[in-house]
């Protein structure tokens, strides 16, 4: 059983915490809990999340979350001068606002372009890209000491870090040149010899018709306007993600399948400039083992329960103890993977989180109780 606690000093020092992990392991709850702890430590904190359970919004005293930061009423937890705000990412609106801000007179035309609309609505990378876009603004001029970012769930959790590169492809100078002849410098000799753009345009027109190509052309031309701005932001975000005061929290669970996923996330982050602070394993059953079984085997307990109920209760405990065994194996494996990086567990709870106190108590498993000094 890992009963180890670590110091919460990173919460007092970091400017950005990024929670990464696959869906369904309590990433949003972990992000909110860490943000709340930081606020209780006296920091002006923002948690930027995507699609939280309504219950969680309610636990933070909010009816719902929107694309604007909403202050969370902390009561006595604000005693050290900290504050907490929560915001939910609306990728579509964030993208539209960005276009309106950067494209000037062209904004309306971009917003109306059907290919643009499909992109903001359906492009798989939009959510990842926009959470970074939102992050950029808030980091630079939000007035927060600490931002906790809950990354979007995706089939591959690290798509997130590829989003700037992927979207940057939209602004590739050579691609633009196919559609917008005057968008770059003169074509070189080799480009005249084999112009992939011409071949692709011909192909697109065969498979999609001229109208489709015309609309694509308009889309790329429109994007050219905002390109410079995107490039600057993309580069800056790249730096922010690797800054010395940016820390990563890998969120997982000791379930064997989740352990495989966590190892994969770990391997992708390890060896980059991104610093992993800790690994948090939620929904752990590692506390269930021999001690509980021994309590059940005490003669006075057996006598008091009676044979029928004893059998029933023993079966249930046996099932949980086998989960305990499984989880301890998963934790051991992740601990050997993590080396000197702390691996901490949060036990599975027989209830949902309804209040700030319950949210805060989750962090007790990581750092011990908040001291009153």
């Amino acid at each position: 059983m890992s009963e180890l606690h670590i110091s919460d000093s990173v919460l007092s020092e970091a400017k950005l915490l990024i929670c990464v992990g696959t869906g369904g392991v309590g990433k949003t709850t972990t992000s909110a809990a860490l943000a709340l702890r930081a606020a209780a430590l006296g920091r002006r904190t923002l948690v930027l999340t995507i699609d939280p359970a309504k219950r969680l919004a309610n636990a933070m005293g909010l009816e719902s979350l929107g694309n604007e930061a909403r202050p969370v009423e902390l009561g006595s937890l604000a005693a050290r001068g900290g504050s907490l705000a929560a915001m939910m990412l609306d990728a579509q609106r964030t993208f539209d606002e960005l276009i309106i801000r950067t494209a000037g007179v062209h904004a309306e035309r971009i917003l109306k372009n059907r290919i643009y609309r499909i992109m903001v609505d359906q492009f798989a990378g939009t959510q990842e890209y926009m959470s970074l876009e939102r992050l950029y603004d808030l980091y630079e001029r939000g007035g927060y000491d600490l931002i906790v970012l809950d990354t979007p769930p995706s089939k591959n959790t690290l798509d997130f870090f590829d989003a700037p590169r992927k979207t940057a492809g939209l602004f590739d100078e050579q691609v633009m040149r196919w559609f917008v002849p005057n968008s770059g410098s003169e074509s070189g000799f080799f480009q005249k010899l084999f112009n992939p753009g011409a071949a692709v345009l011909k192909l697109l027109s065969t498979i999609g018709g001229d109208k489709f190509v015309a609309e694509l052309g308009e889309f790329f031309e429109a994007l050219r306007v905002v390109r410079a701005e995107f490039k600057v932001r993309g580069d800056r975000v790249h730096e922010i993600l690797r800054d010395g005061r940016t820390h990563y929290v890998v969120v997982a669970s000791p379930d064997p399948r989740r352990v495989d996923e966590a190892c994969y996330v770990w391997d992708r982050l390890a060896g980059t400039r991104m610093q992993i602070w800790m690994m948090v394993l939620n929904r752990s059953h590692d506390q269930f083992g021999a001690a509980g079984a021994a309590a059940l085997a005490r003669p006075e307990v057996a006598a008091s329960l009676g044979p029928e109920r004893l059998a029933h209760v023993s079966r249930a405990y046996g099932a949980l103890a086998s989960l305990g065994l499984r989880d301890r194996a998963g934790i051991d494996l992740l601990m050997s993977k993590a080396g000197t990086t702390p691996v901490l567990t949060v036990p599975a709870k027989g209830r949902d989180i309804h209040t700030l106190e319950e949210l805060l108590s989750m962090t007790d498993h990581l750092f011990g109780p908040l001291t009153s000094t």
Partner: protein
Amino acid sequence: MLKGLLQRKLLFVTGKGGVGKTTLVAALGLLAARQGKRVLLCELDTDPSLRRIFSVPVIGFETARLADNLYACNLVAADCMRAFVGRVVPSRRIADAIVGNRIVGIFFESAPSVMEAVILDQIAERVTQEKPGYDLVIIDLPASGHAIKLLRVARSMAEMVSIGELAKRLREVDALFTDPARAGLVLVTLPEEMPVNETLELAANLKSAVKTAIVGVVCNGLRHLEVEAADTEAASAALGDASASGAPELLEALELARYWTEQEREQLARLRTELSIPLFDTPFVFSKASDRDLVDQVAARLLEQA
């Protein structure tokens, strides 16, 4: 009930991440294959879990054999693109030059919906191919949100592209996906509040945004511990001193079991009353089972609900 699912030609399986989609895909595939159908399972550009379940070395664009009558492939967008361009452009050399070009690669990877469209094209290709033909193709879709986006691509691209090879193809794909006799969606969930909320929301969104019929809901991971409040109270009384060695662990475990029991009843009831779609349940496996054992246990339970 199960017969209704397996008689279609194309099944999509989706749900929140980590609810057991791939296990269900494998279990449905095994059941159909045992009935004598030729079955193809498709993963979409994921770390191939089917490979691990069936212990086969590689599952790629070309189909791999998993068991009698059961095959699998992993559709990666770049391969689907190559296949699509290969059909449209007569010359193999020109097709290769286009697909292999770096800049073209950047364009297709970043241009909205193109990758999704070629994956859908390839799915339709596999469903309609004749030699060797499949009686049933099961698609392991990405998690809920991404699944809706993927399924909507055919329709929204068709609105934009009105003539040409792609338009024709998108209309065929849309016709196949929205034909309730041929295609259906299966939603996978867990007996917990959040996943069920998401499933109800997904069902509503699918009804309005995607015209594919939802033909089944599978609630996976039922623990069946049946611990009642009376059991936890009796244990608490029997232990006396609640801080004695082992007592906190025991009481915590029983409280968790009681909560699961309550949730299982409540969430199954919600799924039953709020969706009028055939509902299946499959078990949680406590013992340290291999991925394949898990699939067999899920398949056995599905068969009981046939």
